[in-house]
């Protein structure tokens, strides 16, 4: 493969046909070369996850993206089920569990609330990053590097052109992850990857 990183997007949305923002985000990244787009609800409508297949997929990629709407400050059910089943003891964690060591994990989420609502003074009381602590810790336990999330805020009040702009940003970010043109150290300074994409994208190759 000619790309720096192989990207696996694990996408979870139980009713994509009703989603406005995620549909655009999906369209922006599903056909990028060197990126595997894996629609979990489409593959496992009964939540009957094929663990072996999922583990094989993980092994074949360097960076994993969890793309999903932010439901009750967390992931849709299937992604939790996926974590429960796929990240096995002795494989993903534990003394022998080193399969994922050195890989990176990024969350890409859409949230109905505005960014201002996610802080100690806002009505959500916590920042997104704080609320993502379970995923961050899961990544750490599996020896993975957890990056700041890509977040689309205020989805209920976005105009169509806002959505298009976010989709373009998302595509830029995924392509940069694939090509290794993100300055990961600089990125860690931000609460979310897309707060200022230009600052963290290094020049192409």
């Amino acid at each position: 493969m000619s790309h720096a990183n192989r990207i696996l997007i694990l996408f979870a949305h139980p009713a994509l046909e009703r989603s406005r923002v995620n549909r655009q985000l999906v369209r922006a990244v599903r056909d990028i070369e060197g990126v595997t787009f894996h629609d979990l609800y489409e593959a496992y409508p009964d939540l009957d996850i094929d663990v072996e297949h999922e583990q094989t997929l993980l092994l074949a990629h360097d960076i994993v993206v969890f793309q999903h709407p932010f439901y009750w400050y967390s992931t849709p059910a299937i992604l939790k089920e996926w974590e429960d089943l796929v990240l096995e003891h002795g494989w993903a964690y534990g003394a022998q569990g080193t399969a994922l060591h050195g890989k990176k994990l990024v969350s890409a989420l859409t949230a109905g609330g505005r960014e201002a609502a996610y802080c100690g003074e806002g009505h959500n009381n916590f920042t997104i990053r704080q609320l993502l602590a379970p995923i961050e810790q899961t990544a750490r336990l599996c020896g993975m590097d957890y990056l700041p999330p890509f977040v689309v805020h205020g989805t209920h009040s976005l105009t169509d052109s806002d959505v298009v702009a976010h989709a373009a940003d998302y595509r830029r970010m995924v392509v940069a992850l694939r090509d290794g043109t993100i300055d990961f150290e600089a990125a860690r300074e931000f609460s979310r990857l897309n707060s200022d994409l230009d600052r963290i994208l290094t020049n192409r190759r």
Partner: protein
Amino acid sequence: MHGEAFFYQAFVYLAAAVVSVPLAKRLGLGSVLGYLIAGIAIGPFGLGLVGREGQDVMHFAEFGVVMMLFLVGLELRPALLWRLRGPILGLGGLQVTVTAMALAGVAMVMGLPWSMSLAIGLILALSSTAIVLQTLNEKGLMKTRAGQSSFAVLLFQDIAVIPMLAILPLLAFGAAGALAKGTDDAGHAGTWVEGLPAWAQTAAVLGAVAGIILAGRFLVQPAFRVIARTGLREIFTAAGLLLVIGIALLMASVGLSPALGTFLAGVVLANSEYRHELESDIEPFKGLLLGLFFISVGASVDFDLIASRPGTIAALVGILIVVKLIVLLVLGRVFRMGLDQNLLFAFALAQGGEFAFVLFSFAAQNGVITSEVAAPLIAVVALSMGLTPLLMIVNEKLVQPRFGTRERGERPADTIDEHNPVIVAGFGRFGHVIGRLLLANGVGTTILDVDSDHVDLLRKLGLTVFYGDASRPDLLKAAGADRAKLLILAVDRPEDSLEIVRTVKKHFPNLEILARARGRPHTYDLLDAGVEHVYREHLDTSLRVGVDALRKLGFRSHQAVRAARKFRRHDEAHVRELVRMRHDRKTYISRAREMIRDLEDVMRADLEEVGHDRDVAWDSTSLREEFGQSVD
């Protein structure tokens, strides 16, 4: 007719068709031209295999046109016909009037008296329903704007033949004086109604039309239902033919065009559940008769006459075609057709029609036109018909690329045919659940079933259900199999199911099949036949019962469901493995035993919480081993 002579004739005609039509198609000329060439080849001026009796054959074969209009009617629901009333009356009416006037003007300029000129204009204004519809159908252009408009004009012309038959004898008074009204040999007049006063004739005509509509509504459908119940296909075909021939006879006896009558009957039956079945039963007869008709047109072209005055004939053919083209182009413009469609419309209809043969001889008998004038004109009409397929090719290859705008991909919505994405074959206890789920989710579904009582009931419930055997390629095609995405094969009997699979694989290789399987042998047969999606009809229900049984016995629900899933996965895998070795009895049995043992092992392992399997994440054994000491 002597049997031997009949077979000789049949042999000559069929051989000519079988040789020349594939050849013509191969050369991209279309079947109509192939038939015409075949006719010329076997005619008195070619090999001379058929002589003057070609004329009789032509009269017989004209019945193909009648059948074609019946089929056209079947495709046109009354509502759709009503929507076409504008083009039929407006476009059709103007085409006949304007063309008749223009051609009559030309004839008068050439020095013919006005009455003869008018008769010639009227007769030559008609186009050839047979050639135009056949050619447009073959090119798949019937659903385009041009195709629909052409059809509308042709329909008006067919209707216009009736008043023309009435007017032509009157013109004779204006000409050389009336000759005795003779009866005409084509059966268009000279019937019992002629002796009646005008009001009674009108009443007879109206009565016949009303009779067709009422009988179609209340008599024919129940009759077909009874016939369908016998399950004898040839009797159904016979009934279809009987219907068409009966109507033709009835119409001829009241002096109406048989084509018009059968067209009407077709429209009445267009909403019937037997539509597809009728279509596919009549289709081959229509095809053969039309072919015969085209051959006889080819055979009847009088090359002696043409050879004696080649310049005049060529000029007349040119004038006929050019005048018609111009009128059609202008009308197309007036009716706001796009340039592409307008060109197609004009080139399609720029010829004389088969009714001209009948009307010219009728007019000659009535003394409206002298036979010296009629004979070359008949040759002109035949030649213009023969040139039509060539003209269409000229339009396609030379005119369109230069002047056309290429409106490809922008075809108007298809309103005539079934074009649902899904066909459900078999709507019994299995298929109806599938059909209902699809319909409830707004998926257009065409349903085929062979049980006529059942079809009747379902239609009463408001479903679009057609009676017919889905293993017939023609019926599948009529149901839209060449455009549908999925065929849901839910018929009851494995033999029928496999027969349908064979038909689909052969004729509609792009149609994806989802098949119901009765049991293992049928499952294997379906897999062998190349069906990818095979559903054993009992499997899901049995597993659900199994799950409930386990729960009743105290298993946790989630565990029972997972056990069933696992069972199912293994079982599906086994079936697909066993299908490869089932013809080898010994390997099959030993492998099957092995697999059953495998399955048991897996299930037991699951119960005992050992072994590496998918639910290991919910099992804390390994965690206890690694962290056990520190946790306590």
